[in-house]
């Protein structure tokens, strides 16, 4: 009964109360006697609450709300499940894509490895190409001597037949003998050049052979110089050799160490040539090679008074494919391969010292044992 309120209609006046939604009387209006004078007795009216306050509506609404929540949850759950499925699909798709990319990457890595091998071969061929010119010059000279001294010997022997004086005959015999000796010397000279060329191009065996470092260094010094001369006939440079006599034989793979020597010489000649282009007057290009024995090692020093290496690139020069030469002039592999040969192949050391505009010095240290 709490929810109900009573209104009293009195005989002499009417009082209308306005009841707010909570049933509290907020306003009372009194009418004058006479308007509803006929109302003598008071009647008790029971006014029920508005329908929106009724319990059944409340229950109904609660039911609706519950249903709405229920369906909402269901809807959300379903959409989450859907999203989950979609996510899983996406993850699968991406995993597949990743796997594809992985295969692609490993393929391209394989390609790269193949390319690198090819490049190493082509670097070898490039240095062989540089050598060829030097070799051509080096072989041409002994061949000229062989041809000339052979021809001369035939001429001298023809003369010999006609000479009657004994002393003249002896003179011709001496000349022919000398010529034949020269032929042997120049034949051997050509032979050793061809051998070192073959050694350079052949696949290097892993076997280390006790080697005369002075002889190897000297030979490739000349070849590299003539290689440079063949490429640029105007190139000139003072060559200096300071080789310590009586060095012990060093166990090395000769064709590999000769590649290193050749690479460094080529760089030295290039460096003095570059400096010569800038300072034409009073500049005397000079490349020197020295060998000496230190504690348990043989130290090979290649010094040039070329343009030098700036400090900011000194660390990069042993990186593969790093070159400061114009495109096509260098593969950028020479020094990186050299480093590999000396440090990894021979347990040696290869380091560089340079002052830009003054000199560059490469030091190769090889253990004697």
């Amino acid at each position, binding site marked *: 009964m709490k929810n109900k309120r009573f209104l009293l209609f009195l005989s002499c006046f009417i009082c209308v109360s306005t009841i707010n939604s909570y049933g509290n009387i907020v306003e009372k209006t009194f009418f004058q006697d006479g308007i509803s004078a006929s109302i003598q007795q008071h009647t008790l009216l029971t006014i029920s609450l508005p329908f929106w306050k009724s319990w059944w509506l409340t229950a109904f609404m609660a039911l609706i709300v519950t249903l709405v929540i229920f369906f909402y949850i269901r809807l959300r759950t379903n959409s989450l499940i859907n999203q989950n499925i979609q996510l899983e699909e996406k993850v699968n798709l991406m995993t597949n894509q990743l796997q594809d990319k992985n295969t692609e990457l490993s393929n391209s890595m394989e390609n790269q490895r193949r390319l690198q091998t090819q490049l190493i071969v082509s670097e070898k061929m490039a240095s062989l190409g540089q050598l060829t010119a030097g070799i051509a*010059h080096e072989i*041409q*000279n002994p*061949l*000229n*001597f062989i*041809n*000339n*001294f052979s021809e*001369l010997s035939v001429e*001298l022997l023809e003369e010999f037949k006609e000479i009657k004086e004994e002393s003249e005959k002896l003179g011709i015999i001496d*000349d022919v003998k*000398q*010529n034949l000796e*020269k032929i042997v010397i*120049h034949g051997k000279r050509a032979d050793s050049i061809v051998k070192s060329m073959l050694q350079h191009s052949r696949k290097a065996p892993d076997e280390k052979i006790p080697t005369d470092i002075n002889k190897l260094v000297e030979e490739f010094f000349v070849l590299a*110089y*003539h290689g440079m*001369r*063949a490429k640029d*006939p*105007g190139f*000139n*440079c*003072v*060559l200096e050799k300071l080789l310590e006599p009586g060095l012990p034989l060093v166990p090395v793979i000769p064709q590999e160490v000769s590649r290193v020597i050749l690479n460094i010489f080529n760089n030295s000649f290039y460096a003095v040539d570059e400096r010569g282009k800038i300072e034409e007057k009073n500049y005397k290009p000079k490349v020197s090679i020295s060998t000496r024995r230190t504690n348990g090692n043989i130290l090979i020093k290649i010094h040039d008074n070329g343009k030098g290496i700036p400090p900011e690139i000194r660390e990069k020069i042993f990186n593969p494919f790093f070159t400061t030469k114009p495109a096509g002039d260098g593969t950028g592999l020479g020094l990186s391969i050299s480093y590999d040969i000396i440090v990894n192949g021979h347990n040696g050391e290869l380091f560089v010292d340079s002052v830009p505009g003054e000199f560059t010095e490469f030091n190769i240290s090889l253990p004697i044992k």
Partner: protein
Amino acid sequence: MKKILVVDDEHDVEHLFLQRFRKEIRSGLMEMNFAFNGEDALTFIKSLNPYDVVIVLSDINMPGMTGLELLKIIKSEYKTLKVMMITAYGDESNYNNAISIGADDFMSKPVDFSALKEKILNIQ
């Protein structure tokens, strides 16, 4: 008599020229002198008294002073001296270089000695 200076870094060139021109040397038509680098060649020319070399035969590719540098010096300081360049690289650029510097003649290796003999003997 033709006094000749041969400049080449190959020492056996001396034996070769002496034998190739043995008859001319014996008969007094030629006199052969040798220098094994450009610097020595200049020292030799400077020391001449009387100044009677008629031709210098020079290699181009030598360590140190090149044949072309030697040619340049000879042509500026000893203008009357004839110079013939001999090189293993008988290429166009070497030839043009030598001629533009003032070489009187040019021969490529292997040297044709009978042609060279003719050229030397015809020098006035």
